[in-house]
């Protein structure tokens, strides 16, 4: 049902981009993955096009990024009529309480701390995919 819709991965670290795509592939998640290399790029991919761009089924959002960070992107997404219901999962290294609180306060749907071990990361991505791409009723 959601298979054609893409996932927007907002991540500035190239290794993390590759690892996340590797993990998605491992979990047989076939949705196209569009990558924004920082918050600025994410915002232009969501808003700055001639015709209204198709919205992703899910946004995987890193926090620590140069220029515009993940929190600012999230704020923008929630503040915009067209994107405010978009499922956003924060996918980050931090487990600091202030980051978790801030993420939820700004309207994140979920907060996942990327584990160091790749197998655990694959497991997290598998659950993410199952939940958000299979079972969850998408608002889009």
């Amino acid at each position, binding site marked *: 049902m959601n298979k054609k819709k893409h996932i927007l991965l907002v991540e500035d670290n190239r*290794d*993390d981009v590759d*690892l996340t795509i590797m993990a998605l592939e491992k979990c047989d998640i076939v949705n196209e993955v569009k990558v924004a290399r920082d918050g600025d790029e994410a915002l232009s991919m969501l808003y700055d096009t001639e015709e209204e761009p198709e919205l992703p089924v899910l946004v995987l959002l890193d926090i620590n990024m140069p220029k515009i960070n993940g929190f600012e992107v999230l704020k923008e997404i929630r503040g915009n009529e067209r994107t405010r219901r978009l499922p956003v999962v924060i996918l980050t290294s931090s487990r600091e309480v202030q980051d978790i609180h801030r993420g939820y306060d700004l309207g994140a749907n979920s907060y996942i701390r*990327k*584990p160091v*071990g*790749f197998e655990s990361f694959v497991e997290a991505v598998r659950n993410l995919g199952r939940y958000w791409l299979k079972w969850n009723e998408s608002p889009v």
Partner: protein
Amino acid sequence: MESWLLIIRNVHDETILYEQLNQALQEIRKLNASLEQKVKDRTRELEATNRELEAFAYSVSHDLRAPLRGIDGFSLALLEKYGDQLDHKGKDYLNRIRAATRKMGSLIDDILSLSRIATASLQKKPVDITVMSRDIFQSLREKEPERAAEMHISDDVKVTGDPGLLRVAMQNLIDNAWKFSSQQDVIRIDIARERNGSETRIAIRDNGVGFNMKYYNKLFTMFQRLHSGREFPGTGIGLATVQRIVNRHSGRLWAESEVGKGSAFYMVLPDHTETSQE
């Protein structure tokens, strides 16, 4: 006549004495004021250092973990995609890289939680150590159901302290008791509330391998281990964490042991009722 003179001299002396006293008093006040200022300055300095440490821990959590994920993930990718081009030794090296990466990941996590303990604000409440310990023990049993283990704890172990921090402390102590007794046929952990003179202590005893008191000064030091990682895995941060939690409560922590005869850990936490009597 003479007695009058004596009185006058006495009054004169008293006036001098009074002036001297007054001067001394003023000096004490001045000293007090400068001392207070000093305390304020020091506190501000310490608070600044604390904030710096927090910022440091924060950046550690972000910046050191990311490369580790890369090392582990790409090592696994090598193994899976190019494994057929590697011999046994090559694969073994990659697996060792991965094991070391995970080890470093858990070290980072431990350092982080230790630094959180140092800066977390203390919320003191009545804490039921009995219930807490049974809960911790139960989850250890569930994790290793094949182990024979028993724990004895009296119903009355109650203290005043921060519930979250005390759980971390008890978790570490009971984990240790379990881990270092794992070579016994039956793991035996005893927790008791004991009266020792004017203070009440919590004693946590096990029937494990114990340790040599010669190395006691290393017991509560970060990253210091008294057993090899092959024998008993660990990062060497557990007891340093417990020590820090007890310090935050202005309590005392110590241990007694003998090789092969189990260990005993003792914890004294100042209690509300006891401090109000002082």
